[in-house]
């Protein structure tokens, strides 16, 4: 369609939308990326930056495979980004820990992993349960209350804020039209072209990819799709920069390449991104000090809360519209971990105009309609 302004309009300027836009631009498409304003909610500014494998997939075995695929692609993905932008997103995959502060916690942990790996069709990956002494060999600064941990060698982390900036730098270099303060109010399809109506005017494109996080819930029905979401608030505590002391990420605590320590992984059922519960931060701080007593006197510089993009069952949604061909929806919680997949696997599918069912069929929202067997 020569009349289209853009081949694809991607809605949502977070990590999922930016990675998808970059992947589409790599396919030679004219892409518009529509974003909201500076003060609007954006999960990509508040994530924990893990590229995480362990415990992914309990309840949907295919998710484990999808996660490992992205984790494996991450090294090459970060190299590509570096070549294009000169920016290093500091991807590392040293393996990661999930620490337990009591025997009960450790048992529960072992139980989760056993159930996960007992699922039919699960891809095999190594996860070990280690005792205090074994953990201390790798994490010498753990406190006496740490009774053990689970460890998975596939786990890693990146500098997610730099990743965010790098993706924006890369899409800018590839000619993607970035349109901030273009909150999409309505989407219509006329004569084979999508019209996205925003306060700042209309954007027309041949295809549309919804990557708007929790806002997909509102947008998806406009193009015959659905995205049942269950937003969740998480809080993170960040310290001042410290000299490196922690060689591995822990699921609730990691040291960034800049030196700061991020502490988090709380879950609250609230959707007010401004609210911040001191008691939750305090619990996070307390556990962090029990895990690593040497952090007791370290200064907390910031705390923040962010709304997780969470589907109703916690697994991603990738779907294409049957009523509005050319419309796609992408929803996931792990925008960092799955970033390589979105850029290198999902974007080319959208460019081709059809999702590859062999890879993403399990993530269709139709799973929410499955009736219980009679």
């Amino acid at each position, binding site marked *: 369609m020569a009349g289209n302004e853009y081949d694809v309009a991607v809605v949502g300027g977070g990590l999922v939308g930016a990675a998808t836009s970059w992947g589409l631009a790599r396919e030679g498409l004219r892409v518009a990326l529509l974003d909201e304003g500076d003060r609007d909610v954006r999960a990509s500014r508040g994530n924990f930056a893990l590229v995480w494998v362990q415990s992914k997939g309990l309840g949907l075995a295919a998710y484990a495979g999808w996660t490992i695929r992205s984790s494996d692609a991450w090294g090459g993905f970060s190299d590509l980004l570096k070549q294009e932008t000169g920016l290093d997103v500091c991807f590392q995959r040293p393996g990661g820990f999930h620490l337990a502060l009591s025997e009960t916690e450790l048992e529960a942990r072992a139980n989760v992993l056993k159930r996960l790996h007992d699922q039919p069709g699960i891809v095999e990956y190594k996860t070990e349960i280690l005792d205090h002494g074994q953990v201390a060999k790798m994490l010498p600064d753990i406190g006496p209350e740490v009774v053990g941990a689970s460890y998975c060698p596939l786990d890693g982390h990146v500098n997610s804020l730099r990743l965010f900036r790098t993706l924006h730098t890369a899409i800018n270099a590839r000619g993607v039209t970035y349109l901030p303060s273009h909150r999409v109010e309505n989407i219509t399809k006329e004569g084979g072209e999508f019209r996205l109506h925003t306060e700042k005017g209309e954007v027309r494109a041949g295809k549309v990819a919804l990557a708007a996080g929790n806002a997909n819930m509102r947008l998806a029905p406009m193009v015959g799709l659905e995205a049942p979401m269950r937003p969740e608030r998480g809080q993170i505590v960040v310290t001042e920069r410290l*000299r490196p002391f922690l060689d591995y990420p822990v699921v609730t605590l990691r040291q960034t390449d800049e030196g700061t320590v991020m502490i988090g992984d709380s879950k609250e059922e609230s959707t007010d991104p401004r609210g911040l519960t001191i008691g939750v931060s305090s619990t996070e701080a307390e556990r962090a000090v029990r895990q690593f007593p040497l952090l007791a006197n*370290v200064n907390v510089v910031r705390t923040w809360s962010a709304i997780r993009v969470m589907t109703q069952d916690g697994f991603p949604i990738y779907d294409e519209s049957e009523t509005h061909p050319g419309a796609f929806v992408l929803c996931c919680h792990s925008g960092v971990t799955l970033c390589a997949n979105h850029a290198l696997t999902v974007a080319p599918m959208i460019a081709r105009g059809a999702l590859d069912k062999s890879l993403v069929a399990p993530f269709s929202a139709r799973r929410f309609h499955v009736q219980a067997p009679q």
Partner: protein
Amino acid sequence: MFKRLSKPRGETGEAVSLKVDGKPIRARAGDTVAGAMLAAGVDRFRTTPVTESPRAPYCLMGVCFDCLVTIDGVGSRQACLVPVREGMAVETQIGKREAGR
């Protein structure tokens, strides 16, 4: 950079002694650590955790965080807000703080 006024009000003299990077200095009771260090001629309080460039106090009112030093083994204390105490051990801070101190 600074010297003391010759005729101070109240108790005279520099009655408090403390150490900065192991070197003894004298201070007046009521001084902040930053004030005492400036009066003693210390012109570098720390280097930054980002590029290790040198810094000294900029605002002296608690907002700039360029006067961060290690006091009695605890890092990143605002020298402009902490009063001097007899026997205090102050260390200038190089680059990122070390966890545990």
